[in-house]
């Protein structure tokens, strides 16, 4: 404790000494860090768009501007990982896994200016279309150029799976093509090895080797090994590459399903492939997904969604027990079964983004743990997109994306007072 206190007291001092003019200290009544629970009387130091320190009642050096709001609560900026906000392209071919949503960014879209007001600071934008429409991109909701918007590209591959042969075949075929590619690599490798043997004692040029290795930093392990001795595997076809990436786990899949049958068909189509995947479950009042929450309840042949420990991207909606008007909280059932819940607004519209936190609050009232609900709109979607190093919680070193509210964020009477994105207030009149 002592050392911690010492450290904490040192930090701001160091900052002041370094004379960074843009350091800002924020004092609020409480902070929902998401990663480390609640900090009362929190002080957060922000510099260069990052959170430098966060702690309880930290001393603030003279000269550092302070924003003191004892009535406010701060939470991480909201992360909606499944949206089309500000995108208006139309889907093309049903099999276009190489399409990237990052190619259609339009930072000047009106929606972003509004979203910021609702506390949404990170979006996961997916490409339009059916079947396998392509790869999503994680973006900031405020930027001047498309490049500036991008937090990280290719955060997940969207796959839509319905109970029909075409959508299942699309997946099995794609993996078959990935198999063909592997075969191709293998042959090329053999050929390369033979040639190498022929050359015999001739030394290889090392610089070239290194260059090649650098050219493919993202390649899978096998490829890396190959790169060491100068072997360059043939380039995969654009439509095949995403599936090669799925297999080597440099890309994850977000599979959209709408019913329990879809879930079983997805597992059937996936077969023995080992990839990282999460689920986007379309929720409605008559959802039958309770059948596949876990294996035990209905004696399924396969693991339930909870048993798989995957993320479930869903709307905060209560569904009904079939044939009755009794409500059931599927998000709670998923969470209890071991799945990780990710909430998105009920619809991908501005009004529903405005009501997002309130709607999630309804799920809390219906039994979902408050911490899980908070996580489900911040860190969990950030982890889904693999951007948890930057956003999703109030932690040292993360982007200073914060939402300031005047009460419990899930209370319908609570209003957003200010929103900070990358250390800059993008909403709210804040006089320091």
């Amino acid at each position: 404790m002592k050392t911690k206190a010492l450290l904490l007291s040192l930090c701001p001092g160091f900052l002041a000494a370094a004379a960074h003019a843009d350091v800002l200290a924020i004092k609020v009544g409480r902070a929902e860090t998401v990663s480390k629970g609640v900090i009362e009387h929190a002080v957060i130091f922000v510099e260069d768009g990052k959170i430098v320190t966060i702690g309880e009642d930290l001393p603030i050096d003279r000269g550092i501007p302070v924003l003191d709001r004892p009535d406010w609560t701060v939470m991480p900026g909201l992360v909606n990982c499944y949206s089309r906000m500000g995108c208006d392209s139309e889907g093309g071919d049903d099999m276009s896994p190489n399409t990237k949503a990052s190619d259609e960014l339009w930072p000047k879209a009106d929606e972003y200016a509004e979203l910021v007001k609702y506390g949404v600071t990170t979006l996961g934008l997916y490409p339009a279309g059916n079947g396998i429409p392509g790869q999503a991109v994680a973006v900031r909701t405020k930027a001047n150029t498309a490049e500036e918007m991008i937090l990280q590209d290719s955060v997940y591959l969207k796959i839509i799976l319905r109970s029909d042969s075409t959508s299942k075949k699309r997946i099995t075929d794609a993996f078959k093509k990935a198999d063909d590619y592997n075969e191709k690599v293998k042959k090329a490798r053999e050929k390369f090895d033979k040639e190498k043997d022929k050359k015999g004692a001739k030394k290889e040029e090392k610089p070239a080797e290194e260059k090649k290795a650098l050219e493919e930093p993202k390649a899978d392990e096998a490829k890396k090994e190959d790169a060491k001795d100068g072997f360059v595997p043939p380039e995969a076809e654009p439509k095949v590459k995403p599936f090669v990436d799925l297999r080597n786990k440099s890309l994850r899949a977000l599979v959209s399903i709408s019913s329990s049958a879809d879930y079983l068909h997805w597992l059937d189509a996936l077969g023995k492939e080992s990839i990282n995947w999460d689920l986007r479950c379309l929720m409605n009042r008559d959802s039958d997904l309770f059948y596949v929450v876990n294996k035990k309840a209905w004696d399924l042949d396969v693991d339930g969604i909870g048993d798989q420990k995957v993320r479930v991207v869903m709307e905060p909606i209560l569904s009904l027990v079939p044939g009755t008007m009794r409500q059931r909280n599927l998000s709670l059932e998923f969470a209890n079964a071991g799945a990780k819940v990710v909430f998105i607004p009920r619809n991908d519209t501005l009004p529903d983004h405005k009501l997002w936190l309130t709607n999630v609050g309804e799920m809390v009232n219906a039994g979902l743990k408050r911490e899980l609900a908070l996580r489900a709109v911040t860190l969990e979607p950030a982890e889904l997109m693999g951007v948890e190093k930057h956003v999703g919680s109030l932690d040292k070193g993360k982007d200073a994306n914060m939402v300031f509210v005047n009460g419990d964020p899930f209370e319908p009477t609570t209003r957003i007072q200010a929103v900070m994105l990358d250390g800059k207030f993008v909403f709210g009149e804040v006089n320091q």
Partner: protein
Amino acid sequence: MIQKPTWWKPLVAAVLALPVLSTSTFAFQEGGDASGDKKEEAKKDDKDKKPEDRWFAVLNGDIHTGTGEVLRGASLLAKNGKIEKIGYDLDLPKDTKTLDAKGYRVYPGLVAISSQGLMGNAASDFEDTIDPFNSRMVLALATGITTTGTGGSAVKLKRFSVNDMVLSEKQFAIFSWSNRTPRGKSELREKFKNSAEYLRQYREWERKVRDQKDLPEPSKRNVDNTCLAVLKGEQTAKFTANDRDELLGIARLAQEYGFRPLIEGAQEAWTIADELGRAGARVILTPRDRNEKDEQQAREGGTSIENAAILHRAGVQVAIVPSTEGVDLGGIAGRDIIHLPVEVGFAVRGGLPEKAALESITIVPARMLGCANRVGSLEVGKDCDLIVTDGDLLHYQTFVQWAVVDGKQVYDKEKEFYYAQIRPRPAAEQPKKLDKGESEPKPKEGDEAKKDGAGSDEKKDDAKKEGDGEKKDDEKKDGEKKEG
């Protein structure tokens, strides 16, 4: 409904035959064990055990095997979805999932030969499109249907799974034989003629080619492949016809070219039952069909409630379907697929024997769909697809309590909301009924305190219930007598 004078005969025969059968099989097994087979078997078992064996047993039910026998208070054991043993005092392996059917009846799962929508929206590519969670499947299982026939394919209502449920596919070759298109009739006859001729030549060639290797294969020109498949026995020729003349035409065509037609509709079939029987025809009919006789004709015609019974007597295999193939939530209740056993009750009313009635929704449609080797009756080696009912299957009051597909319980009346509230099951374990003056066996020390207050009241209630149940049974039997 039971034909009183004879109902006990098969039963007695079964009971008599049982010990004989069981001892004989036992002896056979012992013989086998003596040789080196035993080791091999043990090895095999080891191999099988790697993916753990799944055991399932239905205990102490009155098992109607669907082959005519009724085994009272018998048990059935299934291994990995296949029936392993049926009998008494079975040794259950460890981890056997059991279903106590004491006081209930066990029937083979029903086969709905013409049905629709029970797999969700799946129409073809069943394994890729089935919705094993849809409500119609639950309703079908609540009816007792465990196999749905649709368009000549047979699919199991294997809930919660999308694998291995297709039993057979595209069994039917659909033909039309109608008085309205005389040309179609002559063309079909021509096709069969050509195909039969080709088949004759082909068989001859097959025989001769062994000696004369250069002999050219007979030309397949003008040969209709569908007709050929029927004549080869690969597919079943299916017609839809109701008119007497049409039925007669089909029977004669079939006799001429030697195939067994399957006829759906068959409203006036009772008028020419003998002819259909000779042709080996099989029919799918609806006992409650109503159609007036053509008054211009002097001969018999129109529908008859005795249709199924008369056809059965003439040796025609009869499968029964309700008038609507799907689950119909509109109009008058009782005519759609979830009233399959009720529909069969009407055939019984028309004189169809009870055994044939059960067969008309189990083994007969299974044969028509080419899956009688797996479903349609409860026999060792077949799939463990069965239903447990709280009374005679054909009685309107009876509910399916449990349905089992591939040795896995897929329906439980108490667990689904459709019929749970109607006549709920009494608690599984009932206390023993005592006559006046008899004393209860002394409870264990620990239990005494608990039972002190409410226990006695509960017991009274239960006793009352039991009494009621008996009364009901009596009433039922009375009703049956009257109807018979």
